């Protein structure tokens, strides 16, 4: 049973929520999920499953620009 934290920049549209749940089901089988809203992400989605952070937020992409090179 994996505890998943999903963070988004603004509340998910229903269509997107369905897609997210499908993804989680496929990946984790049994899971519980908590949704957080954090507008500092600017966009995109961050998923933390206790072991890895899948960071798809716009903020982190912009930050990557800052540090790379």
């Amino acid at each position, binding site marked *: 049973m994996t505890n998943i934290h999903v963070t988004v920049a603004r509340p998910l549209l229903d269509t*997107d929520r369905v897609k997210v749940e499908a993804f989680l089901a*496929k990946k984790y089988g049994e899971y519980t999920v908590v949704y957080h809203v954090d507008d500092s992400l600017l966009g995109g*989605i961050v998923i933390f499953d206790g072991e890895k952070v899948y960071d798809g937020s716009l903020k982190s992409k912009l930050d990557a620009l*800052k540090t790379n090179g």
Partner: protein
Amino acid sequence: MTSILASTILGIDWVKILMHLIVFVVLMTGLTFLLYKPVLKFIKKRQDTIQEGLDKGKQMQEEAESLKAEYDAKLAACDQEIADKQKTAQAELDAYLEEQKQSADHDIAALKAKAQEDIAQERQNAVEEMRGEVVDVAIKLTEELLEKEISEEDNSKLIQDCLSAWGGEHD
């Protein structure tokens, strides 16, 4: 007899003269022995003393001259020694100065190299900083824009893209 003694021959009293002559000879002989020889001896002695004095004086003069020559030689040698010492001191000083100069040159070269390195580094730093600032400004702009304007569509697309990319990989 007295007649012979009293007579004069040709008017000269030859007896008296003879007497005087004998007395004279006796006197002279006596004087020679009593006076002349000692006086001569005395004079000779005096002469010898004077001569001795003169000789000694000459000898001392010679000695003094030889000593002077010796001292002169010593002085000359001293001068030479001093000159030699000066030369070595000068040589050492020159060597030392040369050493200092070389080490100073070395230091200067090192400083120059470091300065050039520093300049290059500073330039690099300035470039990095500038780059950082440009990126910061760009990001700020983007953030401002996005906060206002990211469309629902774009956001959904972003999420979907991420999900498909992640879903496709092994865990």
